[in-house]
């Protein structure tokens, strides 16, 4: 089966359905029918079960579900009110609904539309439905897990579906017969001129056992509307009702039409498939005028025309609550996952941080302990390094002193100094000063000695120190002293490097 749209009409005991698919771009009624179900919502799940059964039995694939409510516990009421602005009206309307003995101690959802009545007054059409009932309907349809976001209160938007574009300003009426009540709506174009509710519905009409009784019931019932029509004509003498549409179950529509023709003196037409613009109804589908209620929200949604009464906000409030719950659940799951995930990460990280801090502390203690334990070792090492440097300096110094080989010096003196001299003494100090004392008969030998000292391999800087003359066996003997330096020592002494 092709995917399509499922329209449902929730009555008192009857659940009517229509299934529309698009064939060659045009909406086509491919399935329709009704089901007797306990729709008092005392047993949760009955509606869900019924819808599932329809889907299964008819083998349909609805991609969207539409609901029309046709019940006596829905308030549709007209009231004349002084003209006021939108804000004032919004404030007044709930109070007016509460004044009606309809929703005693019950929360309700409502909608309203104001139409011009006279210069001072306007006609306000109120629609209200119990919140509990509305919630049950939405919950049960939602439970079928099919996309659902359109609700309609029958027969408020029927007129817009039936008004033909060729006769937009004609005054017409719709007689919509529900199971336990019926509505007589008079309208001109898009303006409602009156809406009347009768507590007689298809169940009361069908209940009499014989034809004669049924005719009496029908006659009395239509008589109610006769008075309505007369009242309309008194009020609007220039606007006679030019057509009456009959929307009722197939089994009663003909009889109702006949009675209406007889009593109301208005051309009557039972709503047929042809009266609904753009809808194709194949011969395989048995038409029932009552299907138009289930078709109304569906066809408005598929078409470009907007209905006068939009009930989106009924739906929206519950959908919003549901959406809110869904978002809350998702948010909570997300937050739990986030808290769980990142919380876990944080827990592990914190644990690691604590562990690392403890280990760092332990390492620091180990370092302090190790330093303390080896304090002597470090001091010993430092002292040893200092001592080593000092010892090297001392050893270097002693080595420097010992650079002079005295054996070599004495051997050199023996071989390098003049033989003509008699040396009486040498003196070598550690600082490298050399003092040579001796005697000679020839004074020139002293000069020769000084010269030789300068040429010597071990001495240098020879200079005259003293000279004493004395007699030795009639000869002159010169006692002399010469000062010199050990080669190299003088430079060291003066710091030359």
């Amino acid at each position: 089966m092709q995917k399509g749209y499922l329209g449902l009409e929730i009555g008192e005991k009857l659940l009517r359905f229509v299934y529309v698919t698009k064939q060659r771009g045009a909406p086509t009624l491919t399935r329709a029918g009704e089901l007797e179900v306990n729709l008092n919502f005392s047993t949760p799940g009955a509606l869900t079960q019924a819808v599932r059964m329809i889907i299964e039995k008819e083998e349909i694939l609805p991609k969207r579900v539409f609901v029309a409510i046709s019940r006596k516990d829905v308030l549709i009421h007209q009231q004349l009110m002084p003209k006021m602005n939108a804000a004032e009206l919004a404030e007044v309307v709930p109070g007016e609904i509460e004044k009606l003995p309809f929703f005693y101690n019950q929360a309700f959802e409502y909608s309203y539309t104001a139409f011009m009545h006279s210069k001072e007054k306007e006609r306000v059409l109120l629609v209200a439905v119990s919140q509990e009932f509305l919630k049950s309907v939405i919950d049960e349809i939602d439970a079928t897990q099919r996309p659902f976001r359109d609700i309609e209160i029958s027969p408020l938007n029927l007129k817009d579906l039936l008004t033909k574009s060729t006769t937009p300003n004609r005054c017409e009426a719709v007689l919509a017969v529900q199971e336990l009540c019926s509505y007589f709506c008079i309208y001109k174009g898009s303006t409602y001129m009156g809406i009347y509710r009768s507590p007689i519905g298809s169940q009361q009409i069908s209940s009499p056992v014989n034809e004669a009784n049924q005719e009496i019931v029908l006659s009395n019932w239509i008589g109610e509307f006769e008075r309505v029509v007369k009242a309309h004509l008194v009020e609007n003498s220039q606007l006679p009702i030019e057509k009456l549409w009959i929307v009722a179950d197939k089994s009663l529509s003909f009889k109702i039409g006949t009675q209406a023709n007889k009593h109301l003196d208005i051309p009557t037409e039972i709503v047929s498939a042809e009266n609904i613009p753009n809808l194709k109804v194949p011969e395989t589908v048995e038409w029932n005028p009552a299907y138009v209620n289930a078709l109304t929200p569906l066809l408005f949604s598929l078409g470009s025309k907007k209905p006068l009464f939009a009930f989106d906000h009924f739906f929206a409030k519950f959908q919003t609550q549901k959406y809110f719950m869904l978002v809350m659940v998702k948010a909570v799951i997300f937050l739990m996952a986030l808290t769980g995930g990142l919380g876990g990460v944080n827990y592990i990280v914190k644990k690691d941080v604590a562990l690392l801090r403890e280990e760092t502390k332990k390492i620091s203690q180990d370092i302090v302990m190790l330093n303390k334990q080896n304090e002597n070792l470090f001091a010993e090492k430092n002292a040893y390094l200092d001592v080593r440097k000092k010892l090297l300096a001392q050893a270097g110094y002693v080595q420097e002193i010992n650079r002079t080989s005295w054996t070599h010096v004495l051997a050199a003196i023996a071989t390098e100094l003049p033989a003509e001299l008699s040396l009486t003494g040498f003196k070598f100090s550690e600082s490298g000063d050399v003092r040579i004392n001796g005697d000679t008969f020839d004074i020139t030998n002293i000069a020769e000695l000084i010269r030789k000292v300068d040429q010597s391999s071990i001495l240098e800087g020879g200079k005259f120190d003293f000279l004493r003359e004395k007699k030795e066996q009639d000869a002159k003997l010169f006692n002399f002293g010469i000062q010199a330096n050990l080669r190299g020592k003088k430079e060291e002494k003066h710091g030359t490097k």
Partner: protein
Amino acid sequence: MEQNKIKKVALTICSAAVLIIGGLTYLNVNALFKTRNQWILKSHELAKVKNDVEEIQRLMNFYKKEKSEFQKYLFQEKDIPGFLDGLSGFAQSAGINIIDMKTSKFQEVKVPEEIEEGQSELVRRKLNKSSDELTKEEMERMLTLAAMPINIQINGPYESIVNFYRHLESFKQLISIGNIEIATANNAYPVLQCDFTLKIYSLKTLEELKENRQ
């Protein structure tokens, strides 16, 4: 419209939660990295200290070996009598008379400042602290090269004196000879009189030298 608002509020709450918990996580992870870096630094420091201790122990062993090696070239207190006996024995066999031999106490070898210049100021200050400035432990630990001057007076022929010096210079241990004075001895030529200072060296602690002085 309402649903969009709900969505926005939920997204705002979730984003705020993400930001708060994310921020906390960031702070914690940051703290973890910092702590980890500190732990790494401390671990490296510990490893370095352990390594330093091992290295110092190894160096200390090396220093001890080096010290004992150095001591081979120095005199021990117990070696000195033997050395002096040996010296008298050699003098006799070489034709040298030892007229006088006078030993003094060990004294620290003072290094002239110009040689010390090579060392850092800190080391010099540390090493040249007076004994009053050092603790007993430092004095006991501080080794120094000490010299014992021996004033020797000998006489003998010139060649014998030269041989005697050659004999002294052939010692393995560190010695030094200074202040040599050779003179003729009262017309006893070729016998000459020779005075000199022989210094033998040993390793001493400052504490030992202090006790020596006292």
